[in-house]
């Protein structure tokens, strides 16, 4: 059996994993990245619209800074976010984008002078400042006060991922492609790497490492219709869960994106609406202003998705053989704009719908899109319960998104979290704490356990068809754990998923018994793991009797801060369980810089926490006193909720902006 030793094992070769790898390597440690597909094929490439960073270069971004970005993020999260983490994030986002600029991302730039734009269905002229010419520009996205989403045409994720992978080439980082981690190696509350399977020849390899990072992205593919790439199956979350020690956070927090095309579920970027596109119903009527007079099409994603679903339920959807949908109209933006700034959208429309979006409306409906939940970590990215295991990016619940993520904050999180977690891991690797103390016999045992499981799957006869189980799981998740949720449906979902999980022990790998590249075998073991992830989502949703962010209960309409201002923590302590173990972690109001309040969309349905007002008063008092003394916004912020000390020294500096700190 093969054992490979390394300082740092990184599972996942997307933006987050690559950024951690670069950080750790540049601090002088060995790194191996395991990746299902060549890194440039990762789902990160699919991010079209952009990356939020408060540069404030463009005219409509003027006045933006970390404070505004922070406030948008907290409101967007419906107060589910960890505010210290969100602060760390907004402080470092401008640094991350500038680093990427140096590494080769050709960010779209500010062009001085007049330009035409569409705002609220009207053509307007925006005059860009001379002094901003050539700096990185930004577009509008949902739920943000300023235009903050920086982009490269509509291939932002692509250009970021390519720059990052090329950086990894420069750093000579070892990539083990088409390798899948199928279990974690751990002993006495400490993670020591992973057992991985080579997807080309079937070989099992044990990677023993001082630090292990899971950066495998989200788990959208537990749903039947998802914008996620087909590799986003939640296997990273599942192998963490299967340790019985590591925990997952907020798994029920699932975001639906308002505008995926029908039927295939491929995303059209939020940039379509950000740039001025409109949502129309079967009568060609623009309905969003009726529901959200202020933010209209650009309310946060959870809100727009629900409004669209509500409107469809009123019979205003367009009938199709794939179910009802609505229209996204970007014709108003004009062909020149579409062909330059929304070219991917145009290509998707041509290739998959056979339409020209400069002339035709695009059929869209809300579709599973993002996983706010994931492996629960501390602000350092380390698991709270399994030492030596780190996670970042969409795979993690670092918890800057709470219960709803703002568009443009996820690609931003991948690089910012990667940048920070790479430093924390390096600190850990520099300390004696990280010494490997595991016996080779234990590693061999871990390998043997996985080999036996695979062998059993291949030997099984007269068993279950993994595809049938998986498709049923996907349907249940879509129908019963979707945009609107209720107790009855969720209970049904949990019951049936538990049944499917039991049945999955009897999966037979039909026809194909090869131990090497064998898609049937892969589907078999992944289905077993995906069912556990699905149960964490459904059970967490059943127990959470409130509506917060993307989690919307028809039978509990209130956001119930009094009882539910807490994170859901799930674990899977014994192999015999058919349901996860669920506990909760309080979100402490007394430490909040922005105590819970009204998000500013729709009707205010909040059961207010008794401590909110008290904390608000403290915040107001401190702010008032310091303002009177002429204190800077940094001093005030520091007095309310200090976070700078938590950052690695090299990232503590104040960000320059035009007209500020230059």
């Amino acid at each position, binding site marked *: 059996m093969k054992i490979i030793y390394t300082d740092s094992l990184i599972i996942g070769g997307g933006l987050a994993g690559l950024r951690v790898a670069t950080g750790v390597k540049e601090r002088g440690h060995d790194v191996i990245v395991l990746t299902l597909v*060549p890194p*440039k*094929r*990762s789902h990160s*490439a699919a991010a079209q619209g952009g990356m939020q960073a408060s*540069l404030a270069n463009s005219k409509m971004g003027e006045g933006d800074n970390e404070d505004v970005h922070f406030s948008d993020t907290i409101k967007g999260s419906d107060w589910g976010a960890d505010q210290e983490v969100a602060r760390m994030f907004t402080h470092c986002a*401008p*640094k991350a*984008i*500038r*680093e990427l*600029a*140096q*590494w*080769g991302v*050709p960010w779209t*730039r*500010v*062009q001085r002078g007049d330009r035409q734009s569409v705002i609220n269905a009207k053509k307007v002229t925006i005059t860009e400042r001379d002094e901003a010419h*050539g*700096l990185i520009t930004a577009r509008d996205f949902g739920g943000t006060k300023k235009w903050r989403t920086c982009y*490269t*045409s509509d*291939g932002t994720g*692509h*250009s970021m991922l*390519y*720059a990052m*992978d*090329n950086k990894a*080439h*420069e750093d000579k980082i070892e*990539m083990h*492609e*088409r390798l899948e981690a199928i279990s974690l190696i751990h002993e006495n509350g400490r993670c020591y790497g992973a057992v991985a399977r080579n997807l*080309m020849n*079937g070989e099992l390899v044990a990677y023993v490492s001082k630090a292990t990072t899971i950066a495998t992205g989200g788990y959208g593919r537990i749903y039947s219709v998802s914008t996620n790439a*087909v590799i986003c199956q939640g296997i990273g979350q599942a192998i963490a869960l299967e340790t019985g020690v590591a925990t997952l956070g907020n798994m029920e927090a699932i975001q639906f994106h308002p505008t995926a095309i029908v039927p*295939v579920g*491929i*995303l059209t970027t939020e940039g379509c609406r950000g740039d001025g596109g409109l949502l129309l119903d079967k009568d060609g009527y623009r309905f969003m202003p009726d529901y959200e007079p202020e933010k209209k099409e650009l309310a946060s994603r959870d809100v727009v998705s629900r409004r669209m679903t509500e409107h469809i339920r009123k019979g205003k959807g367009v009938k199709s*053989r794939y179910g009802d949908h609505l229209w996204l109209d970007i014709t108003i933006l004009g062909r020149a704009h579409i062909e330059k700034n929304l070219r*991917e959208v145009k*290509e*998707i429309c041509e*290739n*998959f719908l056979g339409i020209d979006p400069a002339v035709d409306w695009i059929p869209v409906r809300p579709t599973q899109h993002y996983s706010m939940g994931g492996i629960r970590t501390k602000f350092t990215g380390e698991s709270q319960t399994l030492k030596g295991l780190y996670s970042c990016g969409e795979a993690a619940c670092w918890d800057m998104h709470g219960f709803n993520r703002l568009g443009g904050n996820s690609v931003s999180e991948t690089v910012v979290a990667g940048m920070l977690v790479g430093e924390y891991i390096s600190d850990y690797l520099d300390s004696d704490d990280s010494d490997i103390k595991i016996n080779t016999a234990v590693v061999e045992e871990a390998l043997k356990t996985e080999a036996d499981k695979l062998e059993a799957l291949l030997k099984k006869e007269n068993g279950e068809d993994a*595809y049938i189980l998986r498709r049923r799981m996907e349907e249940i998740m879509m129908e019963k754990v979707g945009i609107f949720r209720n107790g009855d449906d969720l209970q049904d979902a949990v019951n049936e998923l538990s049944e499917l999980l039991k049945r999955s022990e009897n999966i037979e790998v039909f*026809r*194909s018994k*090869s131990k090497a*590249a*064998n*898609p*049937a075998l892969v*589907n078999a073991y992944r289905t077993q793991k995906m069912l556990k992830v699905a149960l964490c989502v459904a059970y967490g949703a059943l127990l959470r009797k409130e509506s917060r962010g993307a989690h919307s209960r028809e039978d509990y309409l209130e956001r119930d801060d009094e009882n539910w201002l807490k994170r859901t923590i799930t674990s899977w302590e014994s192999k015999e369980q058919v349901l996860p173990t669920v506990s909760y972690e309080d979100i402490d109001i007394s430490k909040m810089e922005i105590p819970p309040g009204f998000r500013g969309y729709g009707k205010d349905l909040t059961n207010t926490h008794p401590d909110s007002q008290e904390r608000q008063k403290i915040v107001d008092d401190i702010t008032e006193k310091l303002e009177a003394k002429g204190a800077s916004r940094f001093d005030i912020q520091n007095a309310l909720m200090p976070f700078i000390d938590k950052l690695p020294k090299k990232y503590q500096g*104040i960000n*320059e902006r*035009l007209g500020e700190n*230059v």
Partner: protein
Amino acid sequence: MSEENNRILKISILRFDPNDPEDFPHMQTFEVEEADGMTLFIALNEIREHHDNSLKFDFVCRAGICGSCSMLVNGTPTLACKTLTSKLGVNISLAPLPLFELIGDLSIYTGKWMRYLNQHLETWIHNKEKELNVDKLEERMEPELADEIYELERCIECGCCVAGCGTIQMRQEFVGAVGLNKIARYHLDPRDMRSDEEFYKLIGNEDGVFGCMTLLGCEDVCPKSLPLQTKIAYLRRMMIKTSMK
């Protein structure tokens, strides 16, 4: 979603498992009922799910942006995910892209080839001498130049241009249009400090820009419609000038 009068597609696939010593390359035909808006992604998944779950092929984004699913469709290199079956006849033949290592059936290891290429051509920004201070304003760039760089950066390393290339049939070390396009991209980028002479060392030979026979196969099949021939012609002129210095 069965409907009357739907076409029955006969999809013939080149099957071969190099891990199985008993196996040999052969064609196998599957019948699939066509559905509205069906792409080869949907058809192949249906075959795997309902007919033969050992069928090997690669898809990741299934939206034409990741470059995983390139294959020969009726002999032409293209992305299977964005190929609508309605644009094809009833008889469809699928084969893996040539030249890349075969994993099995339609699945190939483009990643290994591209890794070698990227390392060989050093496809990253060379600006070591510049100290990066992430607190400071970013360096300015002319908006048109940023757009031009992005135009070339849209390559998705799918390998179609390599499969469509005549030179590479004879010269295995040829860097292909994908490699030359990358050099054009870095040459254009003011952040990359490499001199023309340094670029010449990388591609000023028959494995580089002077190997190209201008057959235009690469540009014909590029799924991103990159201006490959224009860029190769430009590089060739530039390299000739550099060699005469």
